[in-house]
């Protein structure tokens, strides 16, 4: 059985969990077994929200609803998931390679002595053993990782597989699991309100030093607002405090893998590319035709962002008006 850990935050199932379930369901199909989800903690409108996980391919949802799971503690979660794995007899466990997955999947791997493929980008190849393709060298290459243990753990890179909608409703099974005594107290949770979190964004508009100053960020924001994208920036921009650090993408900032990465006036140093090269479509606007970013781009305009961007925003508005 394939058990997918479906992470919740503040009572809502996280978006990446739907993709993880879609991925786990596909693995289950290949292995001729079922895909079942595991949810820890309080979920709003639980009976509807959990049954709805069937739409992504989960036949059953194991729900340990103890409110002690509402605040995250990697140690507490790991103990509970290990118990659920044992109770359900799962032999493949799927996480999303998010902040939660990165904290829990390695702990579970060490606890169960079950091999982990961290940051998977494809389905396992079971023709000869159990081999999972994962991203390495910050997106510059892939490795085929063979898992040799009876229980296999995979954490899936967000947006690497996509959400696959199906028909169906999941059976909900209450799981009588109590959290172990945790050693971490969550004092505050601060989420950036009103904007799309960068790590979850399907569309990202990013600006570089070529925009000359924070007062020119409307060139990034106008397009982002028009298409519902998150905004990001290069390291130079974050270091100059033109934009907050959490917007910095690149080797030492965050890595993103959106459907669209739209880079405005960013030259495309190799360290920046390392953070964005898993994007499905890359657009580069730069006045320097020699900017290295063009080599990594799918579409580009050689031109001055100050002139080009307002025209692009107008063109998008026009396209939307025409439907």
């Amino acid at each position, binding site marked *: 059985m394939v058990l997918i850990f479906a992470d919740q935050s503040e009572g809502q199932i996280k978006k990446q969990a739907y993709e993880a379930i879609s991925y786990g369901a596909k693995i289950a199909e290949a292995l001729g077994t079922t895909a079942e989800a595991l949810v820890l903690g309080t979920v709003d409108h639980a009976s509807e929200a959990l049954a709805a996980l069937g739409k992504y391919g989960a036949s059953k949802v194991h729900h340990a609803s103890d409110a002690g799971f509402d605040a995250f503690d990697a140690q507490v979660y790991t103990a509970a998931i290990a118990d659920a794995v044992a109770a359900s007899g799962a032999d493949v466990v799927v996480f999303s390679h998010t902040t939660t997955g990165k*904290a829990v999947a390695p702990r579970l791997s060490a606890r169960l002595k079950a091999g*982990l493929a961290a940051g998977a980008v494809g389905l396992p190849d079971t023709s000869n053993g159990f081999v999972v393709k994962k991203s390495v060298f910050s997106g510059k290459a892939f490795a085929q990782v063979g898992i040799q243990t009876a229980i296999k753990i995979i954490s899936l890179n967000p947006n690497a597989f996509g959400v696959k909608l199906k028909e169906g409703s999941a059976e909900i099974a209450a799981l009588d699991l109590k959290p172990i005594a945790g050693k971490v107290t969550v004092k505050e949770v601060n989420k950036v309100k009103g904007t799309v979190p960068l790590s979850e964004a399907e569309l990202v508009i990013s600006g570089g030093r070529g925009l000359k100053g924070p007062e020119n960020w409307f060139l990034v924001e106008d397009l982002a607002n028009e298409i519902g994208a998150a905004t990001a920036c290069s390291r130079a921009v974050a270091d100059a405090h033109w934009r907050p650090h959490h917007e910095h993408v690149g080797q030492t900032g965050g890595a993103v893998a959106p459907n669209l990465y739209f880079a405005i006036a960013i030259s495309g140093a190799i360290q920046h590319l390392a953070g964005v090269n898993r994007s499905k479509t890359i657009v580069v606007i730069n006045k320097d035709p020699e900017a290295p970013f063009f080599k990594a781009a799918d579409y580009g305009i050689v031109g001055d962002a100050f002139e080009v961007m307002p025209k692009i925003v107008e063109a998008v508005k026009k396209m939307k008006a025409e439907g």
Partner: protein
Amino acid sequence: MKILVCISKTPDTTAKIAFTDNNSKFAEAGVQFIVNPYDEWYALVRALELKESGAATAVTLINVGGADNDPIIRKALAIGGDDAIRVNATEGDSFYVASQIAAVAKEGGYDLVFTGKETIDYNNSSIGGMVAELLDLPYISLATKLEADGSNLTVTREIEGGEEVDTLSAPAVISCQKGMAEQRIPNMKGIMSARTKPLTVKDPVETEVLTSIVAFELPPAKAGVKLVSADEPEELVRLLHEEAKVI
């Protein structure tokens, strides 16, 4: 409070990524190696700051690798740290490496184990969590800030779309990223003193390996950029809508 900082050797961020031996090994020829930036810039420097402020009494570096890792360990010692331990093992997966670090951490009675948030070569983000589980310690991953008051820790960590502030007591394992500290450039005094700092070589403990890399591959070459004239932004929007289908 004693801190153990995990140091990994990785190719330089600008290194050409290529493979040899039928795509089974990273091509090291001509590649410059560095201390994994997350380990050096954030984990190590924050540990040094804690020692400078009196919150920590000692900072020890640990690396799992062969003798050819010694120059990298010395480079980290030039930035700071009292001494270093190298577990003499050249093969093994994340679990193998984590098991070696956990054994040393347990034997040495360290209060804090710091790692970088991931290495820039394998990007597993796994060592910290595995060490924490092997030692049955709390684990805060992707930390952007850490303050210590005695053994009481206040740690800020990244979550999807924001951050979370946690409190806990040492002993604990923390994975560190941007925000924890600022990169330090080693000075001449540091480089000179690094040569004489103790570097202890230990034999590995016996551990199983759970995974192995079967092969590497490079991503398919990009088809090449499709350039649109600066006078025709409508064409770019059309391509994104109709061809790439992203907007």
